């Protein structure tokens, strides 16, 4: 489900369909406050992220405070309030990856895309986040684009990976 963004006012316009979908999800969970996390999960899987307008709508449906919803959304790193890029890049900053130079990789990605952690490129293609251990320490340092895992990434690989996604055909195989 797409959300229209009024970039000038940084406001999100929810279409009738989008509103109906959120309402349907809340109804599916019986409007129970205790189901808030599941509701947020379901809504984010439909929209990709949880902007203020959607949080307000959920609060209204469940008859709870918007601040409470906001507290839950900000607490769990799985939830995001900014739209992720078409190709979300996550870099592992766990111990193994870190000691094998993950920070250099992170800086290189930031430099190449000109964005910070938690941000999305203006063209909407890439977003960047770091995470803690994907359970592939043997491949450190590890980088993920969407579900795809790249192991033993060197600083020089970053440009290549990014340009492949820019070209629209992510065929780069994992090194293992």
């Amino acid at each position, binding site marked *: 489900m797409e959300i229209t963004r009024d970039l000038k006012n940084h406001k999100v316009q929810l279409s009738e369909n989008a509103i109906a979908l959120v309402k349907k999800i809340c109804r599916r969970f019986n409007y129970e406050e205790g189901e808030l996390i599941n509701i947020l999960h379901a809504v984010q899987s439909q929209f990709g992220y949880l902007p*203020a307008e959607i*949080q307000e709508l959920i609060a209204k449906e469940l008859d709870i*405070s*918007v601040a409470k919803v906001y507290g839950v959304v*900000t607490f769990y790193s799985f939830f995001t309030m900014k739209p992720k890029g078409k190709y979300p890049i996550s870099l592992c900053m766990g111990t193994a990856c870190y000691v094998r130079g993950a920070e250099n990789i992170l800086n290189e990605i930031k430099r190449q895309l000109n964005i910070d952690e938690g941000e999305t490129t203006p063209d909407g293609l890439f977003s960047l986040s770091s995470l803690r251990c994907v359970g592939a320490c043997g491949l450190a340092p590890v980088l993920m684009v969407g579900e795809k895992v790249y192991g033993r990434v060197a600083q020089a690989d970053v440009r290549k990976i990014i340009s492949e996604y820019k070209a629209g055909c992510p065929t780069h195989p994992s090194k293992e």
Partner: protein
Amino acid sequence: MTQKIQLNINGFPVDVKPGTTILEAASKVNVTIPTLCYHKDLCVAGNCRVCVVEVAGQKRLSAACATPCEDGMDILTNSLKVRNSRKHIIELLLSEHNADCTKCYKNGKCELQLLASEYKIMTQDFIELLPWKDYTIDMISPSIIKDDSKCIRCQRCVRTCAELQGVNALTVAYKGDKMKISTFFEKPMNDVVCTNCGQCVNRCPTGALVEKNYVEEVWDAISDPGKHVVVQTAPAVRVGLGEDLGFDPGTRVTGKMVAALKRLGFDSVMDTDFSADLTIMEEGTELLTRLKKALKDKDPDVKLPMATSCSPGWIKYIEHMYPEYLGNLSTCKSPQQMFGALVKTYYAKARNLDPSKIVSVSIMPCTAKKFEAARSEMHDSGYRDVDYVLTTRELSIMIKQAGIDFMSLPDMEFDRLMGESTGAAVIFGVTGGVMEAALRTAYELVTGRPVPFENLNITAVRGMTGVKEASIKIENPLKEWKFLDGVELRCAIAHGLINAKTVMDAVKAGKANFHFLEVMACPGGCLGGGGQPIPTNAEIRDKRAKAIYEEDAWKPIRKSHENPEVQKIYKDFLGEPLSEVSHHLLHTKYTSRQRF
């Protein structure tokens, strides 16, 4: 027979009931354990850890506030291990805290500063984390300043907003080192559902949440020879102010307060109690008019129950949460705003003063009154009706700054014209008070006889129960009120917005059958207001309430309609309750606001 638990604290044996925490048990043997996140009014959080104690046989220290006593426990509250840990905990809290204490509004009143002073924290063993903290200072609200750099994340404010007020304007956002106390999307407090009640301000241990203070502005006005500065004092201030100036809780300091205000240089010291009496005249008449429309004229559009409108926290709450019930609110302005509108009209005329030269100041137990005075509709005198609102705490600051030895002051009387009050007005400061005052007048207006209660004390509406209900049967009314004969006038009283929610949800569900509803936003009513001395808790609220009822009992006149200055203002200026002049100056409209 209830089971007893026996334990030792620092070697002293103590017996407690099951469920008692170590902290409560310690206070029984006069052992003080420091706390920060703990507050008597709130649920236990156990997050600040400064109350850690050693339990013999246990390797880890326990938080005294969150650990129930067990039989045979041997507790040390001052061992070397406890002292060192506690000191480290305070140091860690300070490493994230903007400890620029001399420039802080709470300097000398901050619980963290006090602990740092007690434990003589002279060194800095931990890296200063504040420069990396993402913090904001929100000064937009006319009532409350929120400064995240001072926040120790004890969450007293969040618990207050949720548990006592049910407003949930504040939440805990993010986690770990990024955790912060935030509104929805970190909007300014003024842009969210915050009612400005200031209960969070009253409970914040540091300077993270404070009232916006107008002390300097008031000093400037007093020092300006071209200005005539009038001050009014709310009923609850006189039973709270003493606590900040050396007296025990529950001390009535009315006369000393008047004397202090005169010494501060106010040109006229008058009483909000006067306009509280006036409120009863207007609101009582409004209630009877609505009852007449409903019962006699069978008007289907009349809105009942009618709700009181004295508490600006309650007004903003209903504007956000139940905007469809704004018609149920009495149209009466609060006593503060009635007084303000009259100062620049009635008083100015009587004293032959240019209203543009009058500065009208009010001393309130309340932070929401600052917002109320700043509302755009509160300009009916042609000027801003109340220029500055100071809390009880701010008045004590001025008194200290002026070098006044408050305890030795003689008692003085309010100035005349708008300084006379009755016992009915005094009890506006306690939950149930407006109801009791209204009943004393309305019943007599309708029947020609005083309310049928011993010494006019309507005890059914008194006390600290969250929601109170009472009824009074009207018998043998005067001729024009014949339609009320045999009618059981039913009332409900709520204090603390969480209780207002209970009542309003009942109204919404059609389960409420009462005619008149009193709501005060703060627990205990105004005497427990957000602007009252810190600490405020149940025990202190009880003492202040006792003092208010003493003041009422002591007053020679105890019914609003018998206030001679109220009678005079109707004769000379207003005409009669709900007259055209009254409508223009003393009544108002409300604004529907968003909840989401």
